[in-house]
């Protein structure tokens, strides 16, 4: 299954890029995606962020579909 992961705010700086294309068969929901990302990018564990799938904010039990666009959204504090 192919998923496009978009990063916002300080997460871009941690990952070093603003999007990641994933091709992972074992990832079927947001919870599994989260576990996968934390393993790949341990620095993410120090961050707070929410998941949005295809422009809707979702909970971690949300099921992922082929071609989904998943955004990782941290709070912004600047003004």
């Amino acid at each position, binding site marked *: 299954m192919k998923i496009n992961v978009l990063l916002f705010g300080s997460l871009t700086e941690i990952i070093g890029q603003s999007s990641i294309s994933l091709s992972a068969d074992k990832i079927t929901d947001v919870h599994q995606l989260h576990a996968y990302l934390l393993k790949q990018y341990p620095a993410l564990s120090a*961050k707070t962020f929410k998941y949005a799938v295809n422009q809707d*904010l979702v909970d971690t039990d949300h099921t992922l579909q082929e071609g989904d666009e998943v955004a990782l959204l941290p709070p912004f504090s600047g*003004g």
Partner: protein
Amino acid sequence: MTTNLSTQELERYQKHILLPEIGLSGQKKLKEAKVLVVGAGGLGCPVLLYLVSAGVGSIGIVDDDIVSLSNLQRQVLYTADSVGKSKVETAKNSLQAINPEITIRAYAEKFSLENAAQLLQEYDLIIDCTDNLATRYAINDACIRADKPFIYGSIHRYEGQVAVFNYTDAQGNTGPSYRCLFPEAAHEIANCAETGVLGVLPGMIGMYQALEAIKLITSIGKNLSGKLLLIDTLTYTQRILTVKRNEEEIRKVKEGEYTNAKAIQACASEASYKNITPEELHQLIESQSEFILVDVREGNRMGNIDFEPNMTIPFTHLPGYIDELDQEPMVVVYCQTGRTSTMAAQLLAGDYGLANIYNLSGGLIAWQQRNGALVK
């Protein structure tokens, strides 16, 4: 209540009145509107300029900060002469000169859950132009309790977010709040490192906030209640996410289960480097602690400090010495006045994440005054 517009006002707001969707009735709604702008910084300045110009009848400004030179890169209500003065008082004077026909009130205080209820009492719409999460949560919680909408805006480097929260539409349905998006202030906040910001960015996000305010007041167009607008200025990627109301979060706020807003505040303005006084530096030298003292002045140094160890790395060359400095147990940066060294400390600690950065407050001038030491 019938609000009338004077001949002067009809002329001043002509370009709004000529728009069929706004017209006279919309301009009257603007005159009747009471808007509280929390924060008179990067976001607050453009929001205030345009709401004052648009003829919002009553505007309050809350901020306890004073103007600093580094604010002028984006906080366009202030001039070089404003440095050191109260933001809200300076802003009020400039804005009243633009539009003497509206009421502007300046509140030179920090917005918190303590003064929130009283501040909100006089206003119908709140605009969140703050620069820290603690105040954002305080605004959110106060607005839920007072049943008032607020327009959220926030920035990070080249990106911005805008939303309308806690807004009750014509059908009586209230949209989500900031806590429905991010329930709790996270450990994220512990990292208060200073980061840079593109000066134009808060200007742009402030324009979106002012636009949302005009939309809500005059009931034109689609507003961002239940949405989160994301803007990336480097690529012009724009996304509008859907945010749902979380009744459990709203209940927690209403029943006072969130009380951490105040605790977080302490951190919001804390720097990730430490300032040391000349007295403390003196003690450091006396105690023979292991540390390195770095002169960060650019060229034309007027005098040198009277002891070693001492490295000379002009501020502009610091990025080339990050690895070297990172290995020192303690790095004290100094300059003539303490201004350049503050920036150097912010750069090293905030941007490059060095953990043992100390800044000599007041620079060589303060050092010299402290102990009459010879500045060669």
